[in-house]
């Protein structure tokens, strides 16, 4: 199978999972950011934990494909803030916006159009604004184990503890355990 075909299938599975999992639902995202509806937060916690555990196992087997982004600290902080404002305003992000537009949400389609305009803005300001900011405190494509000298295994176990703590606390608070589903 070609590389593009494999990616298409992975993308299709991702689209199905975002939609059925409720992350491609702006009401669920806003509910989680407002700490009123913990469905999306708990889904995200499990998503990240399984991804982290699976990647750790694949790395030990020597079959993981990594694609680490550069740790340009200032650009990443600024980008996270801008994306956060858009995320909190709309309930969409680049992937769920596409998925929600496909599910018939016209407001998501408007947000997708806004994102294409945002991409144009990014291209136009890239030489003058983005590049200089990206160069500040840029540590390159680093991972936590190599930066800290603490092994991936210890990191994964510690962060799994944090993840289970989030699941425990949000479960106690809202009693949203799955027995009724």
């Amino acid at each position, binding site marked *: 199978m070609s590389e593009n075909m494999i990616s298409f299938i992975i993308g299709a599975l991702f689209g199905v999972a975002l939609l059925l999992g409720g992350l491609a639902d702006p009401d669920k995202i806003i509910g989680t950011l407002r700490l009123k509806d913990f469905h999306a937060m708990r889904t995200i916690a499990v998503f990240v934990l399984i991804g982290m555990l699976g990647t750790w196992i694949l790395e030990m087997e020597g079959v993981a494909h990594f694609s680490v982004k550069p740790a340009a600290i200032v650009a990443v902080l600024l980008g996270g803030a*801008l994306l956060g404002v858009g995320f909190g305003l709309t309930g969409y992000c*680049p992937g769920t916006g596409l998925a929600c537009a496909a599910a018939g949400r016209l407001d998501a389609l408007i947000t997708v159009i806004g994102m294409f305009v945002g991409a144009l803005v990014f291209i136009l300001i890239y030489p003058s604004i983005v590049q200089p900011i990206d160069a500040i405190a840029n540590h390159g494509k680093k991972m936590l184990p190599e930066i800290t000298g603490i092994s991936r295994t210890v990191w994964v176990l510690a962060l799994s503890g944090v993840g289970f703590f989030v699941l425990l606390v949000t479960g106690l608070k809202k009693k949203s355990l799955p027995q009724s589903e």
Partner: protein
Amino acid sequence: MEALKVQKAPLPWWAAGLVLGLVQVLAVSLSGPLGVSTQYVVVDAKIMNEIAPEYTQAHPLISSDKYQKFDKGWWLDVGLVVGALLAALVAGRFKIRTTTVWWQINHGSSVAGRFLAGFLGGILILVGARFAHGCTSGQFASGWAQLSLAAVPFTITLFAFGMITAWLVYPKTPDIEK
């Protein structure tokens, strides 16, 4: 018009997270971690190459091969749209909607306001995602899967600004189906 209530997701949280996590593991084992937002720039870069080839070919970012070709990242996004459409149809969740429950509870039924906020939000989302070298998929979910250093500052500002903005824009809470 049905009563204003946030509908339950088709899957419970643990199943939803499990399936998403397994898709990530499949992606890391076969191709590379999930990521979505680069392709918005690729589409614009290809259009700009048609209408302003000199500008594009002198540009430090979009002149590169990565931004001038529909490669595996593009096909992942096409798959995402197809998968979401099929899932919505099969699960009975396909519905033409113009606004959300949280928006209506806080800002009434006017669609123009929702569309304007959605358009401006879209601009911020993509400029932010590319500044950060990735979005909620490529930088947050995939960043933590790989334990990348960049995921740490990204997570802090993404959720801090996301929560403050949601708190300002959506002060009133609607009914939420349990």
